[in-house]
Every structure is written in C-alpha cells, then in structure tokens.
C-alpha cells in the first residue's frame, strides 16, 4: 500500500447550484490518474460529495472495479455543530474507507448491522455499524484475493 500524493479536485466536478462536488466525476479522475500497477486506489477528499440523484454521499466506489473515494466533510463532528473529536472522526473514516474498498471487491450492502458493508444513510448509521466485515463478507473478499485470482488493472 502506498500514498500517491495529492491530486487536485477536477473543476468540472463542482456543482455550483448545490455547492457540492460530484463524486462520480472525481472518481473517474482518480481511476484515470492511478498508477498502472494499482490493484485498488482510494481517494480521500475534504469536499462534500453528492451524486445527481442523492443529496449527499459519504463516498463512492466502482463495484468490482479499482477505484474508491471517501469524503471527510460529513465524518467530522463539526459538520453537525459538535466539538471536534479526533477518535470519532478516525473511527468513521476507517469504516467508510473500508466500506468503499469493499465495493471494489464486489461486495454489495450487507443486511447485518454489525458489518462494515451495512448501508449508512446517516452519520448515526455510520457510528452504529461495526468496524469489521461480517463472516459472509469476509469470505467473499477472501475468495477474491486468493493468490493468482487477482489480476492487475490495465487502463483501457
């Protein structure tokens, strides 16, 4: 795992009417800029993200793809008018980053609330769900990362 450095947020991803950034457009840019030998790439941004159909998203990922993106904006306590809390913030980031990466391994939302892949529509949902994948989701990930089964991404 390695950090690739900063990448500017593409201008065309900004939606002035909503004062938010279109996550799909940023995600496409991240994937385009990803090193050739990447297995998975995770983007982290301070920007508040949305998609055309939803008022906001915590992140977005390519199902069975390589790219994932997480926004920090709504993971901070300050967003909800509370005092900053680094522990809570790190816990939320851990969950959402792994959740989005889980999608790149083909995982869909899990019905178990203790699982990281449980859908979070609110920050309470994020806090409520567990910090690890459930047994079923873990198995699904393991089946994908067995040696020889994972192939390197090649840019089209």
């Amino acid at each position, binding site marked *: 795992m390695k950090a690739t450095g900063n990448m500017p947020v593409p201008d065309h991803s900004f939606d002035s009417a*909503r004062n938010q950034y279109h996550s*799909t457009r940023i995600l496409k840019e991240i994937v385009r800029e990803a090193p050739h030998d990447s297995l998975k790439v995770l983007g982290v941004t301070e920007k508040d993200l*949305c*998609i*055309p*159909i*939803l*008022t*906001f*998203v915590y992140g977005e990922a390519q*199902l069975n793809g390589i790219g994932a993106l997480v926004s920090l904006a709504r993971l901070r306590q300050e967003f909800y008018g509370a005092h900053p809390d680094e522990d809570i913030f790190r816990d939320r980031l851990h969950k959402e980053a792994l959740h989005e990466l889980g*999608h790149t391994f083909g995982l*869909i*939302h899990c*019905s178990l609330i203790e699982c990281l892949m449980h*859908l979070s*529509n*609110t920050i309470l949902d994020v806090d409520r769900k567990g910090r690890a994948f459930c047994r079923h989701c873990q198995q699904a990930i393991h089946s994908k990362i067995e040696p020889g089964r994972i192939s390197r991404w090649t840019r089209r």
Partner: protein
Amino acid sequence: MDQKVNILIVDDEEIVRDSLSSWLIDDGYEAVAAENGTKALEVFPSRAWDLCLVDLKMPGIDGIQLMEEFRRQVPDQLVIIMTAYATVDTAVKAMKEGAYDYMVKPFNPEDLSMTIRKIIEHQRLVRENIFLRKELKKQYRLHDMISKNDRVLEIFDLVRTVARSNSTVLIQGESGTGKELLARAIHEESPRREAPFISVSCASLTETLLESELFGYEKGAFTGADALKRGKLELAQDGTLFLDEIGDISLKLQMDLLRVLEQKEFRRVGGSNLISITSRIIAATNRDLKKAIGEGKFRDDLYYRLNVISITLPPLRERKEDVPLLVEHFIDRFNIEMDKKVEGVSTGAMRVLMEHDWPGNARELRNVIERAMVVAKDTRISEADISLPVSRKEGSNSKSLGDMEKDHILRILVENRWNIIRSAQVLGIDRVTLYNKIKKYELKKEVGV
C-alpha cells in the same frame, strides 16, 4: 434479501440513470435503466417489476403518460414519479393518476432507502395476500363448484362424507344451480371415480326412448332394434348414474325404476337375463316432488327410495356473496378457453351483477360473463359489457316471482321470434327447462308475432 427486487429506472439524463442504478445495485437490487418512454415500453414486458422509478419530464412520452401505459398493462404496477420540479400540482396529479409515491430529485439517501423498504414490505404483503386467497379458495371449492355460502359449504362437507357410501342421492334445486356439477363432485369424491359417470336427461326423451336409453335392448326387441344396445344403467357399471329431471318421467317408468332400484337388477328391453346394478344412482330435479306426489304425478314410494340422502341447492339470489367468487371463477375459466387476459370486473359492473336476481342462477351468470368477455375491450369488464335480460328494478314492486318469470320468459321468446335455442341461451337455461317453463306458464305464440 430472499428474492431479487426488480427496479426499472426511466430518466432522460444519463448521469441520473447511472448514479441511481449503481446506488441500487450496490444495495443489492436488480436495476435496469431506460432513457425514454419508448425504450421503457420495450423493456417493460420482459419481467415483473417490483417498482418503476419514472422521471416526470421527458421528451416524447412524459412520466404520467408512461405510468398510465404501465398501469394499463399491469394494473397494480407500483410507480414512483421523480421530478426536479417540486410543484404541488404535479405531485397531486401524479398521485391522482395512481403513482405510489412522488419524490423530488435529489433524494435524501434515507428517504430513498425507506421508500424502497416500504415497497418491498408492500410487495411481500401482496404476495402473502395472494397466497392466502388461494388457500382460502381451496376451502371454498369442491371440484368444479365454488361457494363461500354457509349452506353450500355444509353441502360440500356432506358430499365429502356421503361420497364414500353407496346410498342414493336426490339433489333438488332450481335450474342452473349446479345439480349436475354436484352429482359429478359426489362421483369424483367417491371410490367410484375411476369408473364412468353417466348422465341421462329424463325430460328430453319420450317414455319408450327413455326406457331403451336406461335399460338398453336386445337385438330384435322391436322394429329397428337391429343390434344389441346396452343401456345407461349397464354402461354406468361400478360408476355413477345421474338421472337428471327425474320429476319429469312417466308413472310407468317411475314404477320400472322403483323395481330396479329395489331389486338391484334389471332386464334389457326384450331380454330375459337379469343384469345386476353395480352403479350408484344420483337423481336430480327442479320440480317440487312433494307437490307432484300430492297431485298424483310422482310416486311417493319412488320418492322415498330416491330420497335417502337429500340435498337442496339454494338459488343464487339467496347466496349473493358467491357472485364475486363465481365471477372470478368464470373469468379464470374463460381466460383459458378464449385465450384472454381479463383481470376482473369494474366496481360498477360488480354492483349491477350483485343487484340482479339471477333467475337462471349460476348458469345465467356464467353466460353473462362469457358474453361480457367476448365484447370487453379492456382487461376489466365494465358495466357497459354486462348485458342482463331485464332491468333490475322493473316491475319488482307488485308482481310475484312466478309472474315476473312468466313475463320475462315471454318477452325473451317474443324478442327472439320464439327461437327456442336462442331464447334459452339468453335466459341462461337449457332447452328442456325452457319447454317446461312454456308448458308450466301455458305460453303461446301469438299469430302475427
């Protein structure tokens, strides 16, 4: 999720289609997107959609028109109208046209999740309801008969019990109440079900014809008897012999029949060998046999011999709760026979059917539904498709039922220029019954009519 939930997205904006379908797919749904109404109508028949998310404003077919078309094809189709323009008018219109819900883009993720969960729960309840209705129908059914009337359900129970015995059964009831169906049900419920069920309509044959029909004849028994013919009593061996309209047979034949029933054996006409009866006898009549006994037209000993187990089928006007059930039953049957997809009747049509008195009973109802299904242009039978022979309220204030029946039959005969077959079809009764009614009411064709 036990079963995949199928969602059809229709939106002219590619970015909306992509983001909504990927969000739904991430959540485990089966999502298919169409870019306009025409494409959506091509995809629509390919599967049963649990939900259609339709954009309100699209070039060509708009969201409301598309929803109407979906609901024309699948009347219970759940549709959610999506729009970027939050106006009360469009929301009201969409809901009025039958949209399940109305959502303004962009959605709050929680609202979208909750709406979909509500839909899944709704679908689960619908499926459960269909299953329970089917289960309930099984209890209302006895082979080809269906009823939820307490008296008829008691008869169904009685049939299940008596079917195992060999006792003679006498079924009484007006024309069209299902006497033959009940006789067949007894046969089907009995251990004799693999053997033949033979039906004889006693009223349609003359005395001598009926005799040879029942008992058969030996070769040379009379002029024209150039070969041996087995009678219905013999053909029904080990099975069931159904004697319909038993109240119409002559006194001589009544005596012969009584002897046969008592001795359990008979001879073919012109024959000398005794043949044992191994069949079960079920008789039926629409006449009042006790009255016929009083008038000397029916032998009381035969009556008591036949009346071991007595069943009286109530007329349809006394079990109106069966009308919707029978309507559904006939629609299901004619959908198969006519290769149609009629789904039911409108509220107005059902009201008309419920208010009618049904003198021809279930048979008349069946004929009315059959005709309505032929003329119906929609998937639902409307009031205009229902053709009843007489206005429901006409003359009901002063005349007796008998007088009304007499007037009605005469009117139909005149309208059909005394064509017996056509008149019987309109009345929903068979020809023999019509002849009997003409005789009973002493109806005559007037000169010049």
